[in-house]
């Protein structure tokens, strides 16, 4: 059996950033386990630009952003085993993995960093009726085919869901000569970022149909058409509004789900709202020494924030490795009115931390208010707040009252 101070599960943007920060903090034994052939995670297929504006002040493509971290990880001599799938993590931080070259690996870790990212919701999760023809892809799978494997997925395209990857793929497919007939979104507002609506749809005259969904999928071997319909405010299709749209490809961009099977195996409790772990201000899960950050914790819109969050995790994990424990965080952070979820869900009231949240629906001229009982800790005015945009607020330790819970609301 091997022994490591820190085992990092997943060599995407979160895992790479965490590894580098751990090393900067003096942690010597660090091992990254990555299931793909190369590190970089989903960034390898995100060839569009716009990454790194916050962090590097320039607009990079996904592979370039990832490579900056990969180069530094290599320079630092941090070990990364690729083509390696983690099978199990125990409550006691025993990690079991398999690799084609190394066979079965058992590693006892002092700390485990969960940075597995997320995966896409699929047609099965939507329970859309219809046949089961070829030509139905999630946006990320289509992106992998086109950008990594040089395989074009179709010609006449309908996109269901307005998540950012779907919007990016609408533009990408158009550039590659496909005809994107429209994007259909069940909610009355887009789930992707406004700038992506502008530069991926409006620039290419691709119509966005809000409050619409796909109610039937048709075709035997290959998809031949989908039926779309308008939806009411409770997302129920309105009878009589159906329209059949001939197409050979349906792209689904209907949400991302943190990939937490390994977390559950380790006894980590998940939050039903984020579908990621409950964590404290140190990004420590309910299991001491097991930490989570990035998209495995809650889905981000920008990789820059994933890197930052993973670095904050690594700061705490380094402290944990040095001291053997971290200050107790027994106070709850509550999501109040109009707030969908918060990260972290627990805090100590003795240290500063970053609070992340999303609002439940689009709001205009709104204040995000953080309170302990009657006391206002922080108030941030915003001209607009969208569910598509994660909001982050710095909470300063000196503003906090010991022993009192926090509540965050948008009002």
């Amino acid at each position, binding site marked *: 059996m091997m022994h490591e101070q820190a085992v990092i599960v997943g060599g995407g943007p979160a895992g790479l950033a965490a590894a580098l920060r751990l090393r900067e903090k003096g942690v010597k034994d660090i091992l990254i386990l990555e299931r793909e052939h190369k590190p970089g995670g989903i960034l*390898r297929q995100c*060839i*569009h*630009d*716009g990454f790194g*504006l*916050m962090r590097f002040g320039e*607009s*990079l*493509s996904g*592979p*370039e952003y990832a*490579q900056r971290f990969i180069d530094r990880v290599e320079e630092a001599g941090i070990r990364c085993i690729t083509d390696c799938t983690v099978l199990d993590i125990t409550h006691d931080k025993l990690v079991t993995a398999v690799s084609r070259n190394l066979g079965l690996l058992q590693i006892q870790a002092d700390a485990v960093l969960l940075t597995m990212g997320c995966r896409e919701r699929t047609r099965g999760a939507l329970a859309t009726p219809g046949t089961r023809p070829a030509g139905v892809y999630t946006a990320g799978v289509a992106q992998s085919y*086109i*950008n*990594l*494997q*040089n395989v074009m997925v179709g010609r006449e395209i309908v996109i269901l869901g307005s998540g950012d990857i779907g919007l990016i793929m609408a533009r*990408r497919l158009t*550039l*590659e000569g496909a005809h994107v007939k429209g994007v259909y979104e069940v909610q009355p507002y887009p789930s992707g*970022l*406004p*700038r992506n*609506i*502008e*530069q991926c749809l*409006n*620039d290419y005259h691709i119509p966005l149909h809000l409050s619409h969904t796909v109610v039937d999928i048709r075709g035997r071997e290959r998809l031949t058409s989908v039926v779309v319909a308008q939806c009411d405010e409770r997302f129920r299709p309105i009878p009589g509004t159906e329209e059949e749209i001939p197409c050979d490809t349906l792209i689904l961009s209907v949400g991302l789900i943190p990939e937490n099977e390994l977390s559950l195996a380790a006894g980590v409790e998940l939050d039903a709202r984020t579908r990621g772990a409950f964590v404290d201000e140190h990004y420590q899960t309910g299991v001491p020494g097991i930490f989570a950050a990035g998209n495995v914790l809650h889905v981000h*819109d*920008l990789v820059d924030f994933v890197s930052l969050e993973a670095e904050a995790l690594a700061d705490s994990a380094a402290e944990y490795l040095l001291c053997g424990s971290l200050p107790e965080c027994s106070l709850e952070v509550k999501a109040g009115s109009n707030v969908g979820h918060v990260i972290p869900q627990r805090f100590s009231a003795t240290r500063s931390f970053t609070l992340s949240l999303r609002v439940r629906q689009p709001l205009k001229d709104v204040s995000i208010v953080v309170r302990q009982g009657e006391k206002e800790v922080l108030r941030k005015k915003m*001209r*607009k707040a969208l569910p598509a*945009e994660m909001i982050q607020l710095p909470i300063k330790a000196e503003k906090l009252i010991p022993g009192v819970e926090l509540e965050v609301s948008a009002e």
Partner: protein
Amino acid sequence: MKRTFTCIVCPNGCEIDAEYEGSRVISVTGNLCPKGKTYVTQELVDPRRTIATSMRVDGGELPLASVRLTRPIPKDRIFDVMAEINRHSLTAPVAIGDVAVPDILGLGSDVIVTKNVARA
């Protein structure tokens, strides 16, 4: 004339209400930074975009290398530039920053490689 723009310069995606006459901007509101005004002015006179795509790599460990433009090009030339890029291919190895097509279509923008692809 009045129009609302969504600024695409950064992830803030500011909604900018602009008042203008022809290509002269009279006022802008809603932008969090001065780049918003520059963006609106540019959109009125000469809208430009960068694009990212991929190019075939012969003899590489991967079939494709991703590429992007170093400077924005006129929006109405996007498909011309795509067609020109698709006429070219690369030979492995290629590295991030390699110029795949210099000064594409004389538009003052280079196509650069954004992924390292080693020989197979």
